[in-house]
């Protein structure tokens, strides 16, 4: 993938597919320690020990349309190219946590890319799922909790034009602030 934010979009869909109702994403850019990492924690159905062991195999997949599942293997490769790696913990019936670590200064690290587009599309496509998104860049943090949006909007759908565009702009502004 051209951007890490595209890997994030991809991986978070696994959580949605696992019927998670709450997905927590933390993205950390720590130049001092030369690390860029993200973690996705969900309360979905989790994985058995057997599935967890085979999940980095490109021929392991939960879908029926194809016999390959490339999301996790591609992410693992992207991390390892920079000198980093992935770590996945999961418990059946409880959920999964995946941590991906990249060496920040590695010439082989893709840019983080457009996080506001990634988060906007997840938030508006999966309205029944709550997202907590924390993006830390060195000392700054941008925190988004979609449960706050839900509290204000009540029955009004995130898909309403005005709401959807507000969410996109809100995300764009928050992201931009991190790099000022």
């Amino acid at each position, binding site marked *: *993938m051209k951007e890490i934010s*595209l890997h994030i*979009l*991809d991986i978070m*869909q696994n959580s949605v*597919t696992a019927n998670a109702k709450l997905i927590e994403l933390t993205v950390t850019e720590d130049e001092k320690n030369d690390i860029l990492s993200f973690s996705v924690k969900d309360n979905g159905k989790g994985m058995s020990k057997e599935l967890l062991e085979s999940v980095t195999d490109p021929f392991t997949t939960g*879908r029926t*349309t*194809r016999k390959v*599942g*490339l*999301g996790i293997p*591609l992410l693992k490769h992207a991390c390892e190219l920079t000198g980093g790696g992935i770590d996945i913990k999961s418990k059946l019936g409880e959920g999964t946590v995946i941590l991906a670590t990249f060496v920040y200064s590695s010439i082989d690290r893709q840019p983080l890319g*457009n996080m506001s*587009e*990634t988060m*906007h*599309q997840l938030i*508006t*496509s999966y*309205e029944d799922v709550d997202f907590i998104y924390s993006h830390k860049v060195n000392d700054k943090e941008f925190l988004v909790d979609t449960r*706050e*949006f839900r509290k*204000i*909007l*009540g*029955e*009004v*759908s995130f*898909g*309403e*034009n*005005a*709401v*959807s*565009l*507000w969410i*996109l*702009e*809100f995300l764009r*502004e928050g992201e931009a602030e991190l790099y000022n």
Partner: protein
Amino acid sequence: MKSLAELEAIRQKVSAGVSMRKDDHAVRIVVGMATCGIAAGARPVMNAFVEEIGKRNLEHVSVVQTGCIGMCRLEPIVEVLVPGEEKVTYIKMTPQKAQKVVAEHIVNGRPVKEYVVGEND
């Protein structure tokens, strides 16, 4: 600066008008966003739909993503579902093509035949 107070104002405005209930007969634009779609460039395509629909202020049009549609080498794939009409499946989409689909198909009711999946694909 976007604020939560603005969101409250939007809620009031939408509630007062005709809002898009989840079971409403809205036009649905479904963008394939599995690993294949993302790698092929589906995210900017979905964003182009969102922005074009927002710019034209088209109500009752929802844009959502979906998983693998099964024709991975033809990604980015976009399905347009207009109530009462047959589903139209567009392949190898780009942000520019998305704008044209909104103008021709969504607004004027004429599917863009050149972008539709065919027998030779």
